[in-house]
């Protein structure tokens, strides 16, 4: 394996990724006043996180059945207002128990 090529490639990956993250934060330093743009940015987290969760969560455990159990557990815990850690651990525990059954 040509280490120089590998290290340059790693540098390219890191550089591109950092620029994507850094540019908006460095360029937009004032509060945006436009209501539509503000509203758009308000909804971004919910849209992006939902699109990333579904349907990928069903493939997260290696079994759609145990993943479905974990998803239901996570939604139920979140619905009852539990925090991040509780929901994450609860979903994992549900998947583990389900994998003993299925």
């Amino acid at each position: 394996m040509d280490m120089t090529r590998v290290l340059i490639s790693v540098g390219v990956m890191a550089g591109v990724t950092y620029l994507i993250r850094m540019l908006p934060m460095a360029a937009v330093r004032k509060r945006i006043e436009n209501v539509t743009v503000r509203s758009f940015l308000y909804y971004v987290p919910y849209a992006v996180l939902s699109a990333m969760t579904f349907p990928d969560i069903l493939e997260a455990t290696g079994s759609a059945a145990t993943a479905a159990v974990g998803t239901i557990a996570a939604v139920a815990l979140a619905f009852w207002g539990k925090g991040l850690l509780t929901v994450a651990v609860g979903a994992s525990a549900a998947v583990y128990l389900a994998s003993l059954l299925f």
Partner: protein
Amino acid sequence: MREKKEFIEGLKDGLPICLGYLSVSFAYGMRAVLAGLPLGVAGLISLSNLTSAGQFAGTNLILAGGTCLEIAVTTLVINLRYFLMSLSLSQKVEEKMPLRKRLAVSFGVTDEIFAVSMQHPGPLSAAYMAGMILLPVAGWTGGTLIGGMATNLLPERLSGALGIALYGMFIAVIVPPARKSRPVLFTVVFAGLCSIGIRYLPWIKELSGGWGIIIITILVSGIAAVLFPVKAEREEE
């Protein structure tokens, strides 16, 4: 004093992310080393990239002998969602945060760190962000190194169970507000349905991966913004 308190608060909020990262990066380190990448390079990739899908794809390209251009474009497309997240975060960090701190904090914008930041009440200080980013970076890099050294320690049943942990966090971020606010519920359901559609409908399956997430996010957030404009006071809830 206030900075120290916020830093510690950040550390606490970063701990669950760190634990989730440990298991995912463990799998990454294992696969990368088994595929022939030196352990140190795998660790360096995790430390310098701090991404999941982006670096997995990049690693595969490196191993397959991809060109720098291929690697750059693939990384760009898969990670472009961070642009939107960072833009959203730029409105959530303290307006007076100096440029050098913005440059430092933006290194840590990941899906999970973004999710936790947006759910934190009030503006985000650099001290809080630094605290929240620290443990996940350590967990992500450490997990990669441990995974690369121990090529099969984690029983399958356990790694499957841990695989859902990060998605559980996303659900913990989106469900409570969706329960309280109709527009957020609309956004969550609409985006989820679009994402499922993109995955399974035959003629748009090609959009899967990086582009799909970006298009859905822009489309759904845009429609929600037009249908349900957010008044300044409601956002402060």
